[in-house]
């Protein structure tokens, strides 16, 4: 498809702005003004509408396709939450209003949403308090690690490293490193769990924290989790919970009860806010009692008269993590989702997510290598190792699935599984969809033996074929430039 810039015609207009209703003043002195105007497209409103409508049709999305992208929890995003976030009482509210004298009374509705949401998330996870400021999961991780650093600093300690399993999300070591810690990586044992002997060896008085995903990225729950936490606490380290996989365990266990001190959640995963083609998300962080004083400011408080206000007077706070109170629009949608599902609904969501994942695993384990043949949680990890014997990679299977109308699972992650295919079906997909996907996966496995080239050629049904990624990286073309 042509770029919007290629559709531009000099002099074509698509805007509607008010006429200047005041007498024009003297222009800004020239030294402050730009010499060359930005070359934005010159197109009509219909040009814009048709361009983006047609672009949207080139995407697979949850609303149009099954999207079992492991670790991303691509569940259905209820429509009514979009309507809630669009209410002008929420969407038009200036974030600085409650910082004016008497301004808190201008934002009581939004402050109440934040206050209530913090409490709901605390109960769901078993934590003492939450901050809603972090703007995405990885941003929550960074916030969490900064809280851990502040805690140790307040105790007069400067610990050096953070322990992370080799199966972790890439964001975990990246967050720990940019906050100033070195990363100690612990391998996974033959059961798919943290290698306890190596863990004990790495743990010492220099350990600031242990960062874990539970269930882990293999989709497995580690029954030794309490022991891991007790050992960490024994040397004064804190436990960090990567909440990417919370959709597996709502109402079944809580990070706080397992001994975790810091938890981040991905509202765009477990709490059904749309992923927006990459974002916005929201990554609230919950903490145990001993870390509450370090949470970012401002804190939302409830006054004795029942009104809500912002409190900036927290001496030990790590400061601002976001400009205001988090991705409010995202938090609001997640709040509406939690209210709609309620206690039973959230538990059923986890139960059915786990049921669907195990159903996929059970039906596919004769066709693909399964790294760890156990009951999984909300996602299952297969390996295309057997298909590789015929020259077929996980990537080829992914491309074949695209032709069948399915967004592929996450591939090549976790890195510790050769040719990994990580399937997270979520609770919102019906059985016919799961069956059709499973049939396509079985078909791919059979084709890898009978006609591997059919997989190498895929996709053939899409507007484009496989793209030359090497060329993209070597002959960088990262923006349109006018040929004129």
């Amino acid at each position, binding site marked *: 498809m042509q770029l919007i810039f290629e559709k531009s015609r000099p002099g074509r207009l698509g805007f509607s702005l008010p006429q200047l209703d005041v007498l024009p003043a003297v222009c800004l002195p020239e030294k402050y003004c*730009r010499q060359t105007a930005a070359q*934005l497209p010159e197109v009509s409103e219909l040009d814009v509408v048709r361009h*983006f409508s047609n672009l949207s049709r080139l995407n697979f999305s949850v*609303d*149009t396709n099954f999207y079992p992208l492991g670790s991303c929890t691509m569940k259905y995003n*209820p429509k009514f939450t979009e309507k809630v976030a669009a209410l002008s009482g929420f969407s038009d509210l200036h974030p600085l209003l409650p910082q004016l004298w008497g301004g808190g009374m201008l934002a009581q509705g939004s402050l109440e949403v934040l206050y209530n949401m913090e409490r709901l998330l605390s109960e769901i996870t078993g934590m003492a308090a939450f901050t809603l400021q972090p703007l995405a999961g990885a941003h929550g991780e960074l916030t969490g690690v900064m809280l851990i650093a502040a805690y140790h600093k307040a105790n007069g300690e400067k610990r050096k490293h953070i322990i992370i399993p080799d199966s972790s999300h890439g964001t975990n070591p990246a967050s720990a490193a940019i906050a100033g810690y070195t990363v100690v990586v612990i391998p996974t044992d033959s059961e798919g769990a943290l290698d306890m002997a190596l863990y004990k060896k790495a743990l010492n008085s220099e350990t600031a924290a242990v960062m874990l995903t539970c269930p882990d990225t293999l989709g497995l729950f580690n029954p030794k989790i309490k022991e891991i936490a007790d050992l960490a606490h024994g040397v004064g380290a804190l436990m960090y919970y990567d909440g990417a996989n919370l959709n597996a365990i709502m109402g079944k266990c809580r990070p706080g009860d397992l001994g975790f001190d810091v938890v981040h959640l991905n509202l765009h995963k477990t709490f059904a806010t749309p992923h927006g083609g990459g974002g916005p998300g929201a990554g609230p962080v919950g903490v145990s009692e001993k870390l509450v004083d370090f949470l970012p400011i401002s804190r939302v408080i409830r006054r004795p008269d029942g009104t809500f206000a912002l409190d900036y007077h927290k001496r030990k706070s790590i400061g601002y993590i976001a400009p205001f109170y988090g991705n409010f629009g995202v938090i609001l949608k997640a*709040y509406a989702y939690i209210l709609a599902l309620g206690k039973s609904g959230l538990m059923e969501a986890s139960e059915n997510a786990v049921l669907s994942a195990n159903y996929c695993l059970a039906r596919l384990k004769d066709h693909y290598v399964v790294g760890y043949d156990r009951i999984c949680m909300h996602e299952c990890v297969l390996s295309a190792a057997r298909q590789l014997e015929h020259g077929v990679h996980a990537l080829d299977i992914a491309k074949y699935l695209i032709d069948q109308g399915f967004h592929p699972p996450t591939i090549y992650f976790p890195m510790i599984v050769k040719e990994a295919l990580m399937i997270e079906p979520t609770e919102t997909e019906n059985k016919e969809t799961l069956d059709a996907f499973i049939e396509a996966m079985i078909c791919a496995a059979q084709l890898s033996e009978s006609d591997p080239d059919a997989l190498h050629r895929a996709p053939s049904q899409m507007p484009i074929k496989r793209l030359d990624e090497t060329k993209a990286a070597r002959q960088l073309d990262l923006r349109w430039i006018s040929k004129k």
Partner: protein
Amino acid sequence: MNYIAHTEIEKKEMLKVIGVSSVEELFKCIPSNLRPKSFNLPEGKSEFEVFEYLKLLANQNATQLTNFVGGGFYDHYIPAAVDALASRSEFYTAYTPYQPECSQGWLQAIYEYQTIICELTGLDVSNASLYDGGTALYEAAMMAVRLTGRKKIIVDSGVSLIYRTMLYAYTSNLAIEFVETPVVHGQSCREDIYKHLDAKTAAVIVQNPNFFGAVDDFSDIVERVHTFGALAVASVYPVSLGMLKSPQEMGFDIATGEGQSLGLPLSFGGPYLGFIAVKKEHLRQMPGRIVGATVDKDNKRGFVLTLQAREQHIRRERATSNICSNEALCALRALIYTSLLGKTGFQELARLNYQKAEFAKATLEKVKGVKVKRSAPTFNEFTLELPKNADEVVLRMISKGFAGGFPLGRFYKGLDNYLLVAVTEKRTKEEIVHFANSLEAALCS
């Protein structure tokens, strides 16, 4: 409502295939002593009930005030086509375009967005977005530290206090030295910046227009910064780039900013849009996802995520940043907004903002006791000196139906009588005149 499709019969069929007798059996890996100590949540409600409750809360917020508050976050008009197109669920229910063949719509949109940001700033390359203007500035500062191998950063105090606070919070464990330089007569104090600038300096960070609304030509500062091998970083307000000298024209190495004003609602602080653009020689230290054009097997143009070896999912603890989810949907809104306005409309938008603010200055200047700070030119926001405490005046203005501005005393010591006033294209002549009259009344009472 739980949005689950499985019927009881289907669940039994699925359990049978798995080889267990109940759903609970799937959770037996969680020992009984690790089960929740409590899970005390309200029961679910219907869509109608939840919506009505939240509508009630929305109505408790005051959005009927005529808005003169800016401070980096502006009340601009959003064309209906922005909402309509960004509400297409083929966009908003997709995720990061890892699989290019079924994500060309998103990939092309991000490529176009990168182009828009390069055009606005004049710089060479951009990325698929960062969280907000503050985190973008932090990423720029860390880029400068990595690129120069130095750890001292000079920050002009005209940079929003919100962003400065974020910078300091993020780097509190990294032994980075920050030096704040003062604003004198509205603009950055050259003398003070040059006094601190040395061979240990990684970057000088300024903001245009600065927090007081003043615009500047930083070319002289940038030139001096480069003689020390340091980088010049600007945080800019994108709407002002329809008129003001671009970061590239002033020689900046990195430009960042808050993209909220490009078609995003104020939404009580988010989701917003952090943008970044850099000179091409700094590309490999730029954080975040980047889309590049390439060709498919049939030599047909297509788009992919590229240079991924910089990122956390490949490089892990050695990545340039930990960012994963970004603000793609907000970037899409900014792209649609700027496409609608186009080359001419975007300049006209900037002109309207400037002219309305100039009219507001002239009108407010006539209010007894009010002084407009005129030592430096401004774009669409300016500073008033009041004869009274600005907090009290703003409080009185609320009862007259105005969000009257941002009292600078909140962020700057000794400026208790100063008020920051923003005027966008949405403010009419009548509203501005009414605002001046109400201010006069508020000062008299």
